[in-house]
């Protein structure tokens, strides 16, 4: 029963943080290069552009849901399972969502990288 709870928490973490990442990535792409914007108009123009972008706060909200679900899951004591499982599954789900919602060119290179890093994270966190 406990493992059902843990995997449900992992699912919530993975889905919420992936949606958050996709929303934030989309928001930042719509603003354009923040470094160039800061160089030309200053840091306050960057902050104004970021906070007035309508996808930014929803993105932060989803990242927040993911973060607090992670804290909750970690408090159940399975850190060695929850942290690496959610980090590596998030990488893979992000690749899928980025392909279909952000229309990123997820080619073999990026799939292989996401899988290598995902497996690597699981090993490092053992």
């Amino acid at each position, binding site marked *: 029963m406990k493992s059902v709870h843990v995997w449900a928490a992992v699912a919530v973490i993975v889905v919420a943080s992936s949606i958050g990442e996709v929303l934030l990535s989309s928001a*930042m792409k719509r603003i*354009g290069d923040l*470094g160039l914007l800061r160089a030309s108009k200053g840091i306050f123009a960057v902050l104004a552009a970021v906070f007035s972008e309508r996808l930014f706060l929803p993105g932060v909200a989803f990242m927040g849901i993911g973060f607090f679900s992670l804290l*909750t899951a970690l408090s159940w004591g399975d850190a060695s399972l929850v942290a690496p499982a959610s980090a590596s599954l998030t990488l893979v789900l992000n690749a899928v969502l980025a392909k279909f919602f952000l229309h990123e*060119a997820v080619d073999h290179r990026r799939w292989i990288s996401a899988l*290598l890093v995902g497996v*690597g994270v699981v*090993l490092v966190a053992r």
Partner: protein
Amino acid sequence: MNLRKYLVLVAVMFFGAIGDILLARGMKDLGPVHLNHPLSLIAALANPWVFAGILCLIGFFGSYMTALSWADLTYVLPATAFSYVLLALLSKYFLHENISAFRWAGILLISCGVGWVTRGPELTRHPEKAGAVASGKIHATGDTA
């Protein structure tokens, strides 16, 4: 990709890894947090380790948003996953934890993945939208697709 952009990716890795280490160090002082006392998390801010960790994570968030403004999500995520390697090395040298054979294998895999993805293009070009996106700023960088 130019030097400024690589420095932003390096900032994402370092702020992320150091922020996590500082938070972990601080939370050890505080002991377990119970979900029915969420306000105890606010008290955690008074801990200097936690406070420094949060400053680092603000730096992480800023550099991460900057990276996402000019690179694809599927490029930034694997590229910055090198922070997991930094975390393992920092815990070896500062927290004196052992790195098992499994961990070294994981470090090797992550490094391969990072090296592999950063050799490819960082941004997908959408010709039909190029004029609308950042009014052509993407092209102004002069990077190759």
